């Protein structure tokens, strides 16, 4: 991709010069922030490469999906998987468009509701997602998929007893192996972490699909991180990634582990070519910062633009990443703390607690992390990363 020129890219960076020079630069910076459209010099210039499925040629099949549910469901599912593989949020919109006619039908098909819930939770509209799932389960109480999605959403919200209940329901209708992953994943967020880890590590993977083995590996890796067993964690994450190379979630977790060991060179290699996925771009920026890499300015600008546009749309879905960006890339702990608090009000995973604790400490106000510490005490959540920071014992 060519280097960008618009949107403040050429804004001069001046430190500690004379005030008048800086004021001049300010005027120049504001001018540079304005759009600067141009006419390409020749017709062969490539303006964009389109990911599979994102072209106008799909219009006929999208029209067909309006008439046939058996076209709409797999098409929406394809779009959702493309969103995941490419990091392009537009695909979630395409999926939503395909489902919209079926969603407005009364009563909607439970499978439509479950897919709609998946889209909503990807946008961090967790309560709305739960609403869709409740409706789906009222119509079809034996829908394993709906129970599993429900467990996932509740887990992100930190509602562990309910999430455990959803896993138990899931187990009634699903394969025993994957049910164990669901249940032990929740159990690992309580004081039973050690036992959950042992159970899951002993689980036979015979007959499991690659994606299921990757899921197990990523759960084991996360538990090992919280137990402070970094070598084991790396083994699990790498195993999961080998089975599911497109899983950016595992890739991000592995990157975090390497960053915590200051192995930023390996992180650069791990994340090469993955810049279009925002959580991975964040890890790349942190690694570039550790390395003093010149690519940092560009990564930081991309992230800043993404956060600013999300805020402008009124959909700040990446608050966790934004808080880490402010804290670890920009050294702005006060702002990181307010974003981390806003994030904690919405989602409550161990990583959300961790960024809040780190931001509060860096901002000189460790007591502001009390909601997260209180949450950890209540649930018996064990995480050496948090304990090491606060000196607290849970």
């Amino acid at each position, binding site marked *: 991709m060519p280097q960008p020129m618009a949107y403040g890219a050429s804004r001069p960076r001046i430190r500690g010069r004379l005030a008048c020079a800086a004021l001049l630069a300010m005027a120049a910076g504001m001018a540079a922030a304005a759009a600067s459209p141009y006419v390409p010099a020749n017709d062969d210039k490539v303006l*964009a490469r389109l990911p599979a499925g994102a072209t106008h040629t799909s219009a006929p099949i999208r029209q067909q999906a309006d008439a046939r549910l058996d076209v709409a469901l797999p098409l929406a599912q394809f779009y*959702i998987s493309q969103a995941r593989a490419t990091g392009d949020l537009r695909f979630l919109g395409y999926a939503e468009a395909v489902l919209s006619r079926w969603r407005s039908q009364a009563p909607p098909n439970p499978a439509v509701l479950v897919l709609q819930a998946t889209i909503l939770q990807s946008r961090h509209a967790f309560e709305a997602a739960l609403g869709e799932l409740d409706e789906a389960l009222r119509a079809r109480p034996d829908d394993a998929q709906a129970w599993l999605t429900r467990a996932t959403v509740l887990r992100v919200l930190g509602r562990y007893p309910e999430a455990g209940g959803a896993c138990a329901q899931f187990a009634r209708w699903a394969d025993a192996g994957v049910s164990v992953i669901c249940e032990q994943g929740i159990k690992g967020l309580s004081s039973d972490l050690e036992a959950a880890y042992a159970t899951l590590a002993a689980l036979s993977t015979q007959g499991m*699909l690659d994606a299921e083995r*990757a899921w197990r590996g990523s759960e084991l890796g996360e538990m090992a991180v919280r137990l402070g067993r970094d070598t084991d964690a790396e083994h699990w994450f790498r195993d999961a990634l080998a089975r599911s190379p497109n899983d950016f979630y595992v890739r991000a977790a592995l990157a975090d582990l390497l960053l915590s060991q200051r192995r930023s060179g390996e992180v650069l290699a791990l994340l090469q070519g993955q810049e279009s996925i*925002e959580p991975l771009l964040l890890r790349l920026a942190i690694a570039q910062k550790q390395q003093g890499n010149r690519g940092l300015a560009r990564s930081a600008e991309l992230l800043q633009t993404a956060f600013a546009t999300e805020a402008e749309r009124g959909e700040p879905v990446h608050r966790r990443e934004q808080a880490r960006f402010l804290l670890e890339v920009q050294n702005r702990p006060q702002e990181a703390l307010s974003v981390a608090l806003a994030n904690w009000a919405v989602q409550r995973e161990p990583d959300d607690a961790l960024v809040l604790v780190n931001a509060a400490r860096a901002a000189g106000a460790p007591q502001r992390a009390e909601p997260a510490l209180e949450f950890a005490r209540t649930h018996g959540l064990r995480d050496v990363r948090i304990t090491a920071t606060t000196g607290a014992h849970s």
Partner: protein
Amino acid sequence: MRGFGIVLALLTLAAATSAQAHVASNGFLSLQVEGARVDGALELAVPDAEIAVGLDADHDGKVTWGEVRAAQGALVSYLRQHLQLSQAQGRCQLQFGALQINQRVDGNYLWQPFTGVCPAALHELTINYSLLDQEDPSHRGLLTLSAQGVAQTAVLGGGRRVQSFDLRHPSVWYAFVEYLQAGIWHIWSGIDHLLFLLSLLLPAVLARRNHRWQAVQQAAPALLNIVKVVTAFTLAHSITLSLAAFDIIRLPSRLTESVIAASIVVAALNNVFPLVTEARWRIAFAFGLLHGFGFAAVLSEMGLPQGARLVSLLAFNLGVEAGQLAVVLAVMPVAYLLRSTRFYQGALMPWGSTGIAGLALVWLIQRASG
């Protein structure tokens, strides 16, 4: 059927724990209103234009400038269907100009300029924005609307397809009031700025002679002292506040906060062991530069609203000055009246200043050690 379910479950899991992303689909609509005329430009990302009208004529997965030029007719008729401007008197007629490309950090956008001619001078404007409503319901139009030198912003599309904007009551006024209040509130709640200023102002009603403080005889020199210190402080923090607000200079907040605490220690101790007696305005200026970064931290937590950045910054600064002036006006007449008393010279000056220095020293240690 079970395989289907489980694979999807995994997608679900990862998507929830950390949403995938780049930026979602956004169009950028900028409009400038002048009388009955609207000058505008719509920016649409290349993938969005592709899904809506089809650009990639040879289906090779690459969109070239030549393909875009060939599709401009289709694009314009799509825009006519999905973007309408109107007022109470009727629709505005849109004329589309030559297409260009704008490179944004997340990729290339088609930049389509247009002019709208409306039936009458515009006092309100209604925008009907339905781009991509069939293809991508999560698409939004980010609007910047300028009229009479005032900009307002809004999010178009989604559930709010038709929106009207009042061009007579600029929302910038609300931004002004909000940021003015924030400025006043900050100087009153941010006691460190006030303690710094008061430390410099306490000796303003005195003069140093033969290593002793004496009351000034007349009001004029005291007033001059006060004006110099307040002006220097104001000027200095306004400069750095502006620089930081526009992201030209950034300092780590721990450093800023620590130096602000240190500045209070210096200013207060200078009253007990005077080094600078005549030109305290220089201290006010030098440290005022750092206090400006402190104000900026508050401002950056609020953020400056798009389209009203300068006005909001000005309002915040005016609020800070107003709050500061109110305190000066309340304290300094009393100081002037008390200036000859033993209480003022023998107790307030040395012990009050020592107390302030001690308090600031505690802050300094807290802030520096984080």
